[in-house]
């Protein structure tokens, strides 16, 4: 109580407390990040194991994919030695882990090209497609979701909700087909699909080829996100803290933006990670609709051709990306909501 009398001491001790507070917050976040990193690494190890087991569960010897029908005994033995499937499983597993740790994903059975290089080429299509599509989705979802919740009593709030209901019920490839039908076949504004052979060096062609696929992703993902944004906003609108803030004299927009966004963002961020991941993986279907040479079509082709190194490589890289996205979403949630930093003790 002494410090209350002397302003200087009060000030100093308060600053000290603040610094301590910030430091302990930072320590908590840092500790969580470290722990989450350890989980990420373990997850990667488990994912690699799952991948190994899954691919070895596939019927037939991977070496068969190298050979035509009616190969001789010697050819089979040679192919097995080349692929490594003549080794015991434990040896195969260790060398598989070693290769993955060095990011050596092997070479394709079919094209004999290094898998990682091929994935890199394909990423030049899939990554921009995913990111542009996701950015469009956020652009649609956040403002419209908040409007739909705040103005749920007006016709346009209800209309947004109804349209978003429609949006999440539509398979992404059907939206693609419909957009092609309208914009490529009837209106002839945009190409119905395909990607320039020279890739982004003929960037205008590449960019116009991206418009319809990205719009497809943006519409479907946006509608699905909008529902979460709307639900989170509705929860906030019915909350006690918002009522208290209003009772203490905040205006409605002030209360919503000061207290609402942070509270409402927590469930949305956890969904965002999953949605971004599924956008990335949903590209498999989108690429098929618009015949884009991305990661998805690489995987589809590899599965059809039984091109094991390519299947394995694509799955590993996608898993890695998805795990990284989940990692980022978890940290972001902790940064937004301090309550989550403490844990439930059973």
């Amino acid at each position: 109580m002494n410090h209350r009398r002397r302003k200087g001491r009060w000030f100093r001790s308060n600053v000290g407390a603040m610094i301590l507070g910030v430091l302990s917050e930072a320590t908590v976040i840092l500790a969580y990040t470290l722990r989450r990193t350890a989980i990420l690494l373990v997850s990667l190890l488990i994912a690699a194991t799952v991948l190994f087991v899954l691919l070895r569960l596939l019927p037939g010897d991977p070496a068969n994919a190298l050979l035509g029908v009616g190969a001789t005994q010697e050819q089979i033995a040679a192919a097995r030695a080349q692929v490594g499937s003549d080794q015991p499983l434990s040896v195969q597993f260790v060398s598989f882990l070693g290769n993955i740790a060095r990011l050596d994903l092997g070479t394709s059975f079919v094209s004999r090209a290094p898998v990682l290089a091929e994935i890199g080429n394909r990423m030049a299509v899939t990554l921009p497609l995913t990111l542009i599509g996701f950015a469009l989705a956020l652009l649609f979802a956040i403002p419209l979701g908040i409007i739909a919740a705040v103005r749920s009593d007006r016709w346009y709030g209800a209309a947004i909700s109804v349209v978003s209901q429609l949006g999440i019920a539509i398979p992404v490839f059907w939206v693609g087909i419909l957009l092609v039908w309208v914009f490529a076949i009837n209106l002839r504004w945009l190409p119905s699909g395909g990607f320039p052979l020279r890739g982004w060096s003929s960037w205008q062609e590449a960019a116009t080829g991206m418009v319809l696929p990205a719009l497809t992703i943006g519409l479907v993902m946006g509608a699905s996100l909008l529902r979460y944004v709307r639900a989170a906003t509705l929860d906030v609108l019915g909350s006690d803290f918002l009522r208290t803030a209003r009772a203490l004299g905040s205006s409605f927009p002030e209360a919503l933006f000061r207290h609402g966004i942070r509270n409402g963002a927590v469930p949305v961020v956890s969904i965002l990670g999953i949605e971004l991941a599924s956008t990335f993986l949903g590209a498999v279907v989108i690429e098929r609709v618009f015949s884009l040479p991305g990661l998805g079509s690489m995987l589809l082709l590899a599965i059809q051709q039984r091109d094991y190194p390519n299947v394995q490589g694509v799955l590993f890289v996608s898993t890695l990306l998805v795990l990284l996205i989940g990692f980022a979403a978890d940290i972001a949630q902790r940064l937004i909501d301090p309550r989550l930093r403490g844990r439930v003790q059973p």
Partner: protein
Amino acid sequence: MTAAAETQAVERRQHSLTLYAGAVLVGIHVVIALLTLVWLPYDPSAMAGGRLEPPSWLHWVGTDRLGRDLFTQLMIGSRIALMVGVGAVAIGAVIGVTLGLLAAFASRWLDDALAATLDILIAFPTLLIAMLVVAASDTASLSTAIVALGIALSAIVARLTRILAKRVLLMDYITAARTSGTSWLGIVLIHVLPNIWPTLSVNFALQFGLAVIAEASLSYLGLGAPPPNASWGRLLQEAQGTVYTAPIGAIAPGVALVSLVIGMNLLADGLREAIDPTRQAR
């Protein structure tokens, strides 16, 4: 007072409207699905008319490029979609809720392990798991797809259950229940499940839609159940090439699919608002 009562009455009417609209949409599909078991307008794999015929009284949505009746195939599609949705969600719910609650209640170590495993399962999403399973089993069948989809959905359900349950477990009434000696199971049954159930059940309806859509995607990619199981996805894939000459073939299966998924979502929304007292009070 009267105005408030009036708003409440209007809201209740809207809720029941949602519920009825959903029930009608889903009901139509259920009736059609049951009907396919005993009667079909045409043999689904036989040529019933000319190629790519436009809609007529004989063929309500025309014929496909092999002259097969499209409406017959749409009807079979309803049956397949319902089987996929119900089967996958049931599998996903049982595994998912159990795992999620386990994680929420578990010690930190077990929780981390489960959360990491869930992350991995989510990292192999619905469609990829199903693609792999189908590619692996030379005989692609509907039940492999359903099991694969169910397992994939369970990860999403578990993750959601875990997050929701943890938020409930932070509440003061849980502490009160614990100190007054309520058992683990009691807390789950009395406090956790009723609190998270509305959100979960809405999520199940979404999962139903996801499963139906994922199966359609699988069929669209050419990895679905083989003919004569006319999944809507395969119909769409076949019709995409002829969308210029016969757009109805590329539209009708999509409309059928969307009507089922929307019906399910409306049904869930209506039920949630009927069940959840906190939403009624607002």
